């Protein structure tokens, strides 16, 4: 990875002492630390860029995705140089919200943005970014939210079962000194001066199309090719890949690509099952990942996978991306009326987490996660079963719960897994 690789040049070379004629050192081994010679600006030092932090597990440089709850599930954040693929929900409400959180986080941290879309003008997307929540305002609202939920009885319950208070909870509120991830108010817009102060590049595909729409199926990679050229140009000119050594301050490029794979990009994988250029999307992802790995950038892509007709393409796309998160909203489905899901707006599936310089995955043990969009917050919580009522309740509701509990993973307790309920 570009950013935090320890300086391998010195260690790897087995040059003799004679060969090492660098100014300060006697040997060719270089020590990692502030005393190292400044010949290589990219390595041998942990780069301190605003809005990033090294991972506590493997030292990988991480950026926040804009949602601290999602950061926690991905192992601290999104690694620089990787792709976060979001499988859109059916009406593209929550996935576009996550997209905007990512971009808003970039503006707050002072990163450069690159927004690509075939449907909306990037300037319009930037106008709709959510406003950041300042800490003291947020604490007030969060406290009153918590008070509304807690009744006096719940304090009594925990008095006897005091051991449960020691269980780790998924963080759903603001960490006091959250410099890394910020909270956003989805009902307010980001202030105009912050947007204007930020640096951003926009790619709106209909503008780049030639004026005459040619009907012949020439190159379905036309839209993708143009986008890749644009990204490469920005990375090169702005020096994110280290090609411009006069750069005074290193910065991260946040790339956001909306609705990749939809018909508006010129790709017909959403229309037919056997398409001519079924590999154009996978080629695009491959080249994009190559560009990202050699530069200080992180990318978020939203893809309407529910429209892709060929399931093999979805599997290939998942393999070619680093982190894959799927959103499934309950709007319009029969789960909306299911009592199990009544507090939530949808399910979130962490489909893939990358192994970066690692042999093991960093997955959490919680597989059943649900999200809800409260007035100002997007929270991700573990899905809990409601308490099993006594057997004077009518049987049908118990059967519903038993049916839906089959969908849950083993983390939710085995008691509700069976169809028969034990009566004592």
């Amino acid at each position, binding site marked *: 990875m570009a950013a935090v690789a320890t300086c391998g040049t010195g260690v790897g070379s087995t040059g003799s002492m004679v060969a090492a004629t660098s100014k300060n050192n006697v040997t060719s081994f270089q020590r990692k630390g502030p005393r190292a010679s400044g010949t290589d600006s990219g390595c041998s030092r942990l780069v301190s860029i605003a809005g990033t932090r090294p991972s506590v597990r493997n030292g990988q440089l991480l950026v926040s995705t804009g949602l601290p709850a999602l950061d926690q599930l991905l192992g601290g954040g999104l690694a620089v140089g990787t792709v976060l693929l979001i499988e859109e929900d059916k*009406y*593209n*409400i929550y996935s*576009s919200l996550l997209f905007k959180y990512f971009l808003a986080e970039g503006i707050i941290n002072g990163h450069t943005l690159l927004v690509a879309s*075939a*449907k909306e*003008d990037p300037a*319009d997307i930037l106008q*709709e970014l959510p406003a950041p929540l300042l800490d003291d305002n947020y604490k007030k609202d969060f406290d009153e939210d918590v008070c509304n939920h807690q009744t006096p009885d719940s304090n009594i319950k925990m*008095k*006897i079962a*005091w051991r449960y208070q020691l269980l780790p909870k998924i963080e759903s509120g603001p960490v006091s000194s959250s410099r890394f991830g910020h909270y956003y108010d989805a009902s307010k817009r980001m202030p105009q001066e912050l947007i204007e102060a930020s640096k951003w590049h926009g790619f709106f595909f*209909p503008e780049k*199309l030639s004026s005459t*729409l040619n*009907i012949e*199926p020439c190159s*379905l990679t036309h839209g993708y090719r143009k986008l890749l050229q644009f990204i490469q140009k920005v990375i090169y000119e702005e020096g994110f890949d280290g090609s411009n050594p006069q750069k005074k301050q290193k910065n991260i490029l946040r790339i956001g690509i909306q609705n990749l794979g*939809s*018909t*508006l990009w*010129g*790709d*017909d994988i*959403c*229309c*037919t*099952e056997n398409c001519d250029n079924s590999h154009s999307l996978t080629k695009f992802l491959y080249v994009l990942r190559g560009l990202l790995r050699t530069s200080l950038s992180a990318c978020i892509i939203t893809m*309407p996978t*529910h*429209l892709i*007709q060929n399931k093999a393409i979805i599997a290939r796309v998942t393999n070619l991306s680093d982190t894959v998160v799927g959103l499934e909203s309950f*709007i*319009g489905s029969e789960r909306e009326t299911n009592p199990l899901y009544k507090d939530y707006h949808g399910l979130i599936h962490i489909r893939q987490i990358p192994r970066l310089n690692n042999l093991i995955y960093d997955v959490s043990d919680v597989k059943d996660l649900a999200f809800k969009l409260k007035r100002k917050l997007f929270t991700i919580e573990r899905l809990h079963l409601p308490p099993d*009522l*006594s057997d*004077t*309740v*009518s049987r049908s509701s118990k059967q519903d719960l038993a049916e839906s509990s089959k969908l849950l993973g083993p983390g939710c307790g085995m008691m509700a897994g069976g169809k028969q309920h034990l009566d004592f």
Partner: protein
Amino acid sequence: MESVLALGGLVLLRDSVEWEGRSLLKALIKKAALCGEQVHILGCEVSEDEFREGFDSSINSRLIYHDLFRDPLSWSQTGEALPGGPLGALQAMCRRTDPGPFTIALDSLSWLLLHLPCTALCQALCALSHQHSRPGGSCLAEPVRVLGLLHEELHGPGPLGALSSLAQTEVTLSGAMGQASAHILSRRPRQRPALQTQWFSILPDFSLDLQGGPLLESQPHPDPHTAPVDPTAHVTFNLHLSKKEREAKDSLTLPFQFSSEKQQALLRPGPGQATSHIFYEPDAYDDLDQDDPDDDLDV
């Protein structure tokens, strides 16, 4: 039904063989024309005369008809046919520059989908719906409406899904007992989609008559025989505490909860005892041998 025309963007009218949608399309066109808007019609499936029949002359004068039915492949070369074929006609509508509310009716979108590649059609539709938002940077408030008639049974799930994701409003026609109904799914940006069902009928002069549902309600009602059960009745423990009981419960200290007084009481010996005493009563089987059994070991 008003919301169908109020929102701009693409409106998909999905019909089927049993419940045809062309009459609804004509009713919506008539409504738009009566509001004083310009209506452009791209006719592909029926001839112009057949389409215009049923409209009175005032409405007919406001309709601008682009005829693709007579000569779709431009064979006649007399200059009557539209240049560029159907896609050229769509693009010509994209480049329209005069202001004012504007409605385009596509009759039918199925024909266009069968004759054009899906991606080109989607891109043209997107350009049509959004063209009024950014002509040279200024933002006009007038919505552009594109009404597209789509025959559901002709297409697979792929193109239907692709067009649904582009549409602002989807009206699916169905019905029961001889009455037509429209399931309207409207997606406002950044809001949850709203689904409503509207029963209607179209009068011979193509005006829309909104109605309530058919007489027989076939919706499932909750079963009235099972009364809602109170789970807190017939329980073997006491769920309701009186005030005295509640006070006694609150003041009880639990064995694992160490308050500081309890800790001090355990650590410090009480006032009555100087040392601790063990009271032991040996019974018959006890062997009171004072030797240390470990002496046998040679350690």
